[in-house]
């Protein structure tokens, strides 16, 4: 299933909330950083170094932004959830499936549309953490980001 404007809006909304919790200093750059991610949803090249440009000066290694990592992590989790919901109700229209996916991350606003098994939750969390790390976050930052997302999904915080 390709990414639709609804998916993007959902990913952006969730990522924005996570960034608000974990990296509030990035909030006023959120639109730029998230647009950058959607334009090129690949993890940064971690081996890239600052070039030896004449008159160039800076920090030798790159600065990891949390926003693309959050957007990537949410994208993976949304895709996973969509797959689970599609498998559970293959006869439903795609619009209904999208509504259910959205509702899954909006627990505080209504009942859970689908019950995820502990095994499925574990898999989703592992994939989320791995994706955050792929985007350059440290182990602890990736865990904190995944925690923030799953807290919202499971507990409705």
């Amino acid at each position: 299933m390709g990414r639709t404007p609804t998916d993007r809006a959902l990913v952006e909304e969730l990522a924005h909330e996570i960034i608000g919790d974990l990296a509030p200093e990035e909030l006023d750059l959120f639109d730029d950083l998230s647009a950058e991610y959607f334009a090129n949803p690949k993890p940064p090249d971690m081996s890239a170094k600052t070039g030896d440009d004449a008159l160039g000066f800076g920090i030798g290694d790159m600065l990891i932004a949390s926003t693309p990592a959050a957007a990537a992590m949410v994208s993976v989790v949304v895709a996973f959830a969509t797959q689970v919901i599609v498998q559970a109700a293959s006869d439903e229209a795609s619009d209904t499936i999208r509504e259910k996916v959205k509702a899954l991350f909006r627990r505080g606003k209504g009942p859970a549309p689908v019950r995820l098994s502990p095994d499925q939750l574990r898999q989703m969390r592992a994939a989320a953490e791995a994706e955050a790390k792929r985007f350059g976050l440290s182990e602890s930052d990736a865990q904190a980001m995944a925690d923030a997302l799953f807290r919202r999904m499971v507990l409705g915080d």
Partner: protein
Amino acid sequence: MRRLNPFAFPPETNQRFALLVAATGVLALSLAEVLINLRADASGPTLGELSQNPNTPFEVTAAAAGREFLLATGEACAGVLAVGVVGLVAYLIYRGHPARIRRRKHLERLDPARDPKLLETTQSLAQEAGVNPVPSIEIERGSPQTDGQAFGLRNQPAIRLGGRMPLLLRRSPQTFRAILLHELAHICNGDIGRTYYSQAISIAALSLVISPVVAYAAGSVIIGFVRRVFQFAQGQPADWRHFFTVSIPLTLLFLGQALGMLALVIALRASVLRIREVYADWRAALWGAEEGLASILQHNLRQEKEKWWERLLRLHPSPQQRLALLADPSGLFRVALDLPLFAGMLLGITISGLGPMVLRSLVAAGAGVVGLLAVLGSLALSGVSFFVRFGVLIGALFSLVIWIIPLIPLLGVAYLAAESLGLQVEREALAALDRGRRGFMPYLSLIAPAMILAVGLQIGFMLIPLSFLGPVHALINLRRVLDLALIIIETIGWMVAATFVFWLWLAFIRFFGRRFLGFHVGRDAPQGQHRMLRLSRILMMGALIVPLVIWQFHIYRAVTSIPVAGGILFSIWAAAIFLFGVIAVGTGIVLTISRAMHRRVCWNCGSAVNGLAVKNQCQRCGSELAAWLYV
């Protein structure tokens, strides 16, 4: 903590950069020289041949003088044209650098509505640093880097910021500030023009001078080989001996010279840029970014995993060197040994490259004067038409102008060489005063830079193709081993003499720097004394260079057509040493009188001061007497 002020003197790299530009122009001249040497010899009797016969009619002399004048002028113009073409191409490459950087880095001009905080911060830092006009900020969208790079044209400076700089501003404002102030310091230090122009001139030299020399050398040997193969296949005699003993060695020599020039251009550019980085660090530190800079450099030091050869070619010093120079700038006051080597090589290249042009101009001027005399003679006899007389008269006047033109670059080169090394020795003398180093040992230590300057000068003479002053290509024509041995022995003698006279020159600079600049009291650097010392060292360098250049003709007398008798050389040496002494004594007298006429008082409290100013404080108010030397 009291530290030496790196900006107490102008950086010597300004002169080294100018020497690079001058040397590139001369390399273009040398290419024109190669091309001129390919043309067929002119027909008809020369002025020299005509002068053997006292019965030559005036009109024949006038015609020969006119022909020689036009030929020499044309050759000189070809050289000027070659320099002009290289200069123009370099200028166009330089003008295009902002567009190239914008294209390569996909830069986007900062939109005030998109990130007002970033715009406001950069503008306020530029105002704080006094950089005017405020540079335009251009973002490398999508890049994960946190770096900056100054670029742009005069009055249109710009700073590229890596894509994560806006984020850095939010996460670590001090680090952002240090990076931006460092780039603003490059603008303030005038590094943009020098850096990108030196880059442009390196590209122009490589593509228009060095590559054609390599192509010419390789092409001629390939053509020679193919021709001989065809001759051999057709059963004709092929001169393989000439091919292996002349063509191949000459080609290898030209290739070696081209590679040497290439290495010189690359190494010189990198060394100049490396030092400019340290000056930019220091300027930014004086604006209050020292802590931020140190933390970035320490971070980069931990990340550094470069191989030694990568470090050699880098345009930036290692973080370790930068940290050390930031903590203690006295390293900027030392005479590093690469400085005399570069100064010597560039001086050698420039003098050797300008030599043929000077000679041609002299020939043109001489021919013009002979033509003028011939016309004056013919006026009496009325044997030549009015137009010929008028043409030669104009030519003769023009020749005087041509005679003057080559002297300008020669004087300029003496100035640049004297300033690049002389200024640094002066700085070193004052740093030694600050450290309390006295005695003869610091003077003895100047032998090493003097020797390296001499070696560099000799290498510079030999480095350009078909060199005028180091014609190693002509050694192929030597028929006797004894002649070669004599050239080697005399070259060693030349080195010893050059080392001695350069040491004298450096010792003079050191002595007078301590004697006069070390006593200067005030907050501003001594301008008048500095100008006087500068003029003296340039004149001295000019005086010492002349016998060294003339000696080169004597060394290569077996293979060149400009013989110099030993007696003439001795007289020139005597004159040069005498002139050196006169300038030294004269400078000493003028500066002593000037100092005696000015009462030395503390710049802060106005009380009278005695003795050395450097390292000493006013006994009444405790102010640093030579405040201009410290930060």
